[in-house]
């Protein structure tokens, strides 16, 4: 599969414009016929299905390759805040958490609910994660508490309620670190807990990072997952060393920096961050209110910058984009064209599937043009649209 990597790498001219990779819409699915939004798109471990959470309080299942609709999981009575496949007991169950105060487990084969954990009558669950030293702990971020259940018997194991004073928007088990959990909240704090043994607030709070403003999303990246990226509700980006609770970079004006990295409209918000281990590169995905997306590389070493857009997805969405799912190359499947990007979903209720504008067999890597040169003719296809 790496055979084509043997192509000559020509030196790229410096202006970043030449190395922007543009993607065109290949397929678009309307998930509903009302005003409902797509919130989140996640793949099953084997990529046979992808789950899509909607503002209808349901989760729909589609095939990631052809976009065929498989069915819908209904049951939540309020906004679904997060869905996940990983860490759950078996490979065909899906988990979802909601502002109705429950975490529900669904069998994706039958679309039936198989389990329901309730955090309490007036609770909301904003985030959850499955893991822990024995892999059986569901951690949930609620209205200032972090609550733990054992999924084997749905028993509540612990409740950390002193470390946050506002909605806990993210809980994440640290990858490759048994027994460490990170939580992030609207109160602006990222807390790291040691959850081995008996969990309590007093002894288990290991470190606290004060981001100073309401946190939307965090993610681990880098070698040994020692770094944490953090996106806030005021659309700023910061990078931290979570173990030392140390700030590495703070992009307070991230939207302006990103906007300078392309010639399209101002970047209005950020959807997510993606990290590639292969090329050790972090990107922040910025979007416009009109639905255009860009992948902006983040350089967090000396001379921290947000670089010029390396990939642009335009012409698919007509409103704010809420989720981006890049497809793993190895799961593209034999029948798939190369140059696949993956799926995106947004407030227009659409799921969009993207392919690179260049001819399919040319470029296998959607990651960065700078790494691989393609044939000259692709350069002449000037799709640059000044506004």
């Amino acid at each position, binding site marked *: 599969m790496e055979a084509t990597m043997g192509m000559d790498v020509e030196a790229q001219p410096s202006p970043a414009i030449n190395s922007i990779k543009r993607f065109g819409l290949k397929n678009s699915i309307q998930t509903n016929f009302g005003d*409902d*939004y797509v919130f989140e798109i996640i793949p099953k471990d084997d990529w046979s299905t992808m789950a899509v959470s909607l*503002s209808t309080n349901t989760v729909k299942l589609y095939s990631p390759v052809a976009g065929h609709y498989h069915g819908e999981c209904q049951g939540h009575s*309020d*906004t679904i805040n997060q869905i996940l496949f990983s860490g759950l007991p078996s490979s065909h169950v899906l988990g979802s958490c909601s*502002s109705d105060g429950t975490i529900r487990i669904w069998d994706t084969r039958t679309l039936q609910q198989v389990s329901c954990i309730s955090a309490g009558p007036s609770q909301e669950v904003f985030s959850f994660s499955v893991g822990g030293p024995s892999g059986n702990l569901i951690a949930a971020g609620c209205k200032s508490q972090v609550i733990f259940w054992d999924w084997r018997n749905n028993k509540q194991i612990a409740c950390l309620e*002193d*470390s*946050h*004073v*506002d909605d806990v*928007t993210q809980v994440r088990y640290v990858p490759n670190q048994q027994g460490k959990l990170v939580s992030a909240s*609207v*109160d*602006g*704090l990222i*807390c790291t807990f040691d959850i081995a043994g008996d969990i309590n*607030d*007093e002894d288990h*709070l*290991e*470190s*606290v990072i*004060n981001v*100073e*403003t*309401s946190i*939307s999303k965090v993610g681990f990246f880098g070698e040994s997952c020692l770094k944490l990226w953090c996106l*806030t*509700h*005021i*659309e700023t980006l910061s990078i931290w060393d979570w173990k*030392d*609770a*140390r*700030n590495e970079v703070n992009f307070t004006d991230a*939207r302006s920096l990103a906007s300078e990295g392309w010639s399209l409209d101002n970047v*209005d*918000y950020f959807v997510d961050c993606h990290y590639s281990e292969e090329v050790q590169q972090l990107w922040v995905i910025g979007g416009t*209110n009109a639905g255009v997306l860009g992948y902006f590389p983040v350089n967090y070493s000396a001379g921290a910058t947000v670089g010029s857009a390396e990939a642009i997805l335009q012409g698919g969405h007509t*409103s*704010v984009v*809420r989720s981006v799912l890049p497809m793993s190359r190895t799961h593209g499947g034999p029948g798939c064209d190369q140059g696949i990007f993956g799926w995106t979903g947004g*407030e227009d209720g659409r799921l969009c599937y993207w392919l690179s504008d260049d001819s399919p067999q040319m470029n296998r890597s959607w990651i960065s043009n700078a790494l691989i040169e393609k044939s000259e003719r692709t350069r002449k296809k000037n799709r640059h649209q000044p506004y």
Partner: protein
Amino acid sequence: MSKLQSDAVREAVSGIMNDSKNANRKFVETIELQIGLKNYDPQKDKRFSGSVKLPHIPRPKMKICMLGDAQHVEEAEKIGLDWMDVEALKKLNKNKKLVKKLAKKFHAFLASEAVIKQIPRLLGPGLNKAGKFPTLVTHQESLESKVNETKAMVKFQLKKVLCMGVAVGNVSMEEKQIFQNVQLSVNFLVSLLKKNWQNVRCLYLKSTMGKSYRVF
């Protein structure tokens, strides 16, 4: 491009200041910007919440305590800022009641890098629980400017309803300063809304005890 009419804001601010002078309250009233949103669904749309730094300090009487290393303690002494060093924090012995008492004494805390790392171990989650976990101060910035920065930060948060308030000043400030605070906060908040001004139904300015003035 701002749709906020400068005249409307100026008149409102003058009005508020006059009302306050005439009423002669026994405390310094806070001036609040009240925002009413439209075409926004709190259940579907992205959360509207965060902190913003205003150009002029709206709460000058904010009590701040420096939890500092030797260098910061020295700086704090010079500028008349309350402080505690690691020894003093150790003396609290992680006692919940004492930590709670400390938290109540101050509006906010600053901490040196060397100290902030030790806080969970020295104090437990007491400052977290009070919503007052310290903000980091490095040695690359002046302590005084960090204090001012902290005093200039205001929080905004939209809950389940479509209106919210943000503190933008107080009646003892200059009118021009209040005007600038209003302008900056409005433009910043509008930039976070997906339909920008189309998401704003109305804007009012109001002092704590005074009547409200519509500015949009």
